[in-house]
């Protein structure tokens, strides 16, 4: 397996997130489903049963990058992904492909340097590392405070390919 992918999957799992196979994506889309306008989600657009991420049980979105060092999903706000599509639904399913992997945050900034100039940058860059979490009460970990309780990442490629 692609070593970056391996590190990403392992570290995402350590944050409480999960990785699912593309074949299992269908079974994740239950309840009120919101599907973002990201091109990568197009094949599942028909599964949408809800237009407003505020009311969704599950939100399916794309992403702009992934970071292997920290198991992080990076999403830019704009016409396809909103600041809400990755935030309000209890389950957030993210689709991405191996080519979007970066070793660390520095590399992501370098990669998108063009888009990050003042006046031209997306209004919000979201670095999402696992589900929403708190340890405020007696240091007990509880997931899903204000953001999703479940974060599921799905690679477009199956992981067995040479990398």
């Amino acid at each position: 397996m692609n070593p970056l992918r391996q590190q990403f999957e392992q570290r995402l799992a350590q944050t409480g997130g999960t990785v699912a196979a593309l074949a299992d994506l269908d079974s994740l889309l239950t309840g009120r489903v919101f599907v973002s306008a990201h091109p990568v989600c197009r094949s599942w657009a028909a599964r949408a049963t809800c237009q407003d991420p505020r009311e969704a049980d599950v939100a399916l979105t794309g992403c702009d990058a992934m970071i292997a060092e920290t198991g992080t999903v990076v999403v830019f706000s704009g016409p396809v992904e909103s600041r809400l599509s990755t935030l309000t639904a209890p389950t957030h399913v993210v689709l991405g492909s191996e080519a979007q992997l970066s070793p660390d945050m520095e590399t992501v900034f370098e990669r998108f340097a063009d888009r990050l100039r003042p006046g031209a940058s997306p209004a919000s860059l979201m670095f999402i590392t696992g589900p929403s979490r708190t340890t405020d009460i007696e240091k007990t970990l509880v997931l899903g405070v204000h953001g999703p309780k479940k974060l599921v990442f799905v690679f477009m490629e199956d992981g067995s390919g040479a990398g």
Partner: protein
Amino acid sequence: MMHTPVLEEQRRATLARALNLALDKRRQSVAEFPDWEAMRQRAHDIRAGALDRLDEYLNQFERAAAANGIRVVRVATAEEACLYVVAIAKRIGVTTAVKSKSMVTEEIHLNRALETEGIRAMETDLGEYIAQLCGQPPFHLTAPIVHLSRDEVGRILADKLGVPFTNDPTQLTLIARDAMRREFLTARLGISGANFCVAETGSLVLVTNEGNGRMCTTLPAKEGPRVHVAITGIEKVVPALKDVAHLLRLLARSGSGMRLTAYTTLINGPRKRAAGEETTGPDEVHVLLLDNGRRAMLRDPHLREALCCIRCGACSNTCPVYHRIGGHAYQSVYNGPIGSVWSAALWDTEQAATLPFVSSLCGACADICPVKIDIHHALLWQRKLAADRGYTPRWQRLVWWAWRVAMSHPALYGFGSIVARRLFSPAILNRLGKPWTETRDLPPLARKSFHEMWKEEAPK
């Protein structure tokens, strides 16, 4: 001088468990980097370098943020900052504001200022929300209710929200979440701090684990003007995005042992309004850059470094004094080792100015600090400042005066030591040393001074 109460046994145990857990997780996560020391040095250099050219970077940030559609305002004092926020609330006609955890807003007592104008500021970090419900200030920089047991939290929620009692952290979190979600869906004024301001891109960086920071800055309400106000200190500016990446690598690891805080958000401006551009996000973003005593710190070479702090909380976690007395004993917004430095630097009151004495000067804080602030030497320096300003008790000044006179007059010293050895029997010493001597004896004074022994025994 102030007397700090020691925490009761039960609470101290809860606190110690939580602090030690954070320290353990930090140790594991730091071990991933064999060059951690070099990384700390680099982090220090980034922060110190930014302070060296502070005005240049602030100007650059201001220009870049303006290009992104953010309004940047410099405010000199707490009052000015509060007035600005109150004016916005009135202009857009809100009576509720949602707040993401921010020490600066605690520093300027923004909630109080809003309340006097009839505006309720709701804290939305779970810990802060609960602390606010029971009317307590935050206990720890990153863990505001670390001192409360689950039973206590259960009783607070049952009491204030009228829900059935439970002490299950998951249930409790869910109850609080639902109460806050209702507010989020209609809130139109969001207030936050900022962890960093990036000069290169005009971005605000905000980290939260729960996602409340994102809620407060996204403002999901469907109607009416929505405004996000970020209030932060002028010292938070860093030159470039690559610096942010490095500092973030150290921030969460040092505080909680996580590799990265769950939600790290770069905010570059309000919702883009061009057709088809963006559907959610505030209509306006304002950034208040607060001085409130920071420039004075910048001018003092002994205190300047304290401005490098990235508020990870590690120095409190490791501090032996903090372990014993807890956060509330400091009676200040900023507590723990670095909090003492900040409090004494920002506020000229006896309470704040004498906080640097609440330390053993062991230096554990400086050892753990990810940006290598020499915290204990700053505290030592501030003890001198406190003494110069007359904040130390008279008896103490008298003792030091006598010490100085004796030490600079050998004859007087010799005479004094003879008298002292005659006068202070072990019984008297132990009486003077109370309460320390209640469980131990002071060693008796030597019969002969070193001087006398030397005279008798030194080889001729």
